[in-house]
């Protein structure tokens, strides 16, 4: 079975659980016919923010490995945008940490989506629910 994170597990027997989240481009969002999106970011701050979010998760829970991958540029429906991988001894901590990382990534990391649809292109608006999700951890 291929997991896509064999290198994280290689040579380790202390990891009891791996939770992985992958976010994909949908073909519907603010308009029904999204044909593609362009992700802009703020180079430098992006890497720094993702590292900080990972470190916060590391401090809150007992984790064995954290990996965050985010793509930028031109993406089409079905393409992966983001992957978060968390490994820990027990599943509960891995589930929580993965959830936490995504909530903070969506509200803190400097990425912006521009959607291209059959009706033209526009910048995606932030969601109030994402802010509320992040507040849960404070």
């Amino acid at each position: 079975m291929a997991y896509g994170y064999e290198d994280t597990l290689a040579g380790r027997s202390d990891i009891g659980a791996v939770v992985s989240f992958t976010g994909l481009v949908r073909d519907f969002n603010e308009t029904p016919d999204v044909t593609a999106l362009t992700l802009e970011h703020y180079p430098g701050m992006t890497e720094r923010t993702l590292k900080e979010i990972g470190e916060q998760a590391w401090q809150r829970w007992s984790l064995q490995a954290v990996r965050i991958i985010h793509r930028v540029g031109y993406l089409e429906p079905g393409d992966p945008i983001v992957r978060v991988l968390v490994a820990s001894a027990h599943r509960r901590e891995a589930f929580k940490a993965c959830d936490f990382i995504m909530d903070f990534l969506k509200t803190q990391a400097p990425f912006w989506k521009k959607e291209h649809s059959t009706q033209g292109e526009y910048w995606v608006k932030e969601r109030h629910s994402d802010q509320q999700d992040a507040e849960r951890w404070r």
Partner: protein
Amino acid sequence: MHLTHLNTRGEANMVDVGDKQETRREAVASGRIVMQPETLKLLSEGELPKGDVLATARIAGIQAAKRTHELIPLCHSLALSKVSVEFDIDLAESCVHVTSLCRLNGRTGVEMEALTAVSVACLTLYDMCKAVDKGMRIEAIQLDSKQGGQRGDYQRMSAQAPIVTGDGVAGEVSLGERCPSPCVRVKFLAELRERVGESEAVVSLDQLASRDISGLKAALAEQDSRFKQLTDQRTLCAINQVMANDDALVTDDDEVAFFPPVTGG
């Protein structure tokens, strides 16, 4: 990746398409011909000696698409179900944009037909206008999109907004050019950049009434009324790539970025 028009010995080879499925194929190509503004004016007013330039070029482009196989050695002869050639007169760029769409239900793609239609329409425009302007340039002939076929769809990326906003790498602040007197370098990102119509600005520290973010916003608004939008509640700010609020202090050579709420993930 290999070239289907070469055989294993590297010789030219016409691809056998007999076993391929018939699918709906479509391709759009575009190009432009740049000319003197006076030439473009004559063209758009129908004052050129050879008569209706665009109608002639349109017919030439359509005819060319149908005869692509006679010009390009390894192209198949195709029964196109649709060929269109459109022109867009662009006074600002002083050029005519040419776009062609070709379509058929068949076993091979129609991108060569669309590209040939654009090329020959441009050549005809040149021929029709050359009496008054020999310096015209045919430019940027390219495939914009294609649909259908086993290699899947293709869509040229629009080269409008930059994807990234600087060349900084992890943990480093991109320095850019240093200013001679103490200053801060300001960046505008994403939707905010498009809204204010600027990606960067430099503000001398002497211009700041207070040496913090609110002072910087005020100084920018004074420079240009478009920057008044920075006081919008939704606008976020980072100093040297760390989130900051209005009271945060700015010092010489800081990089300050303004941007809208983030929407990644």
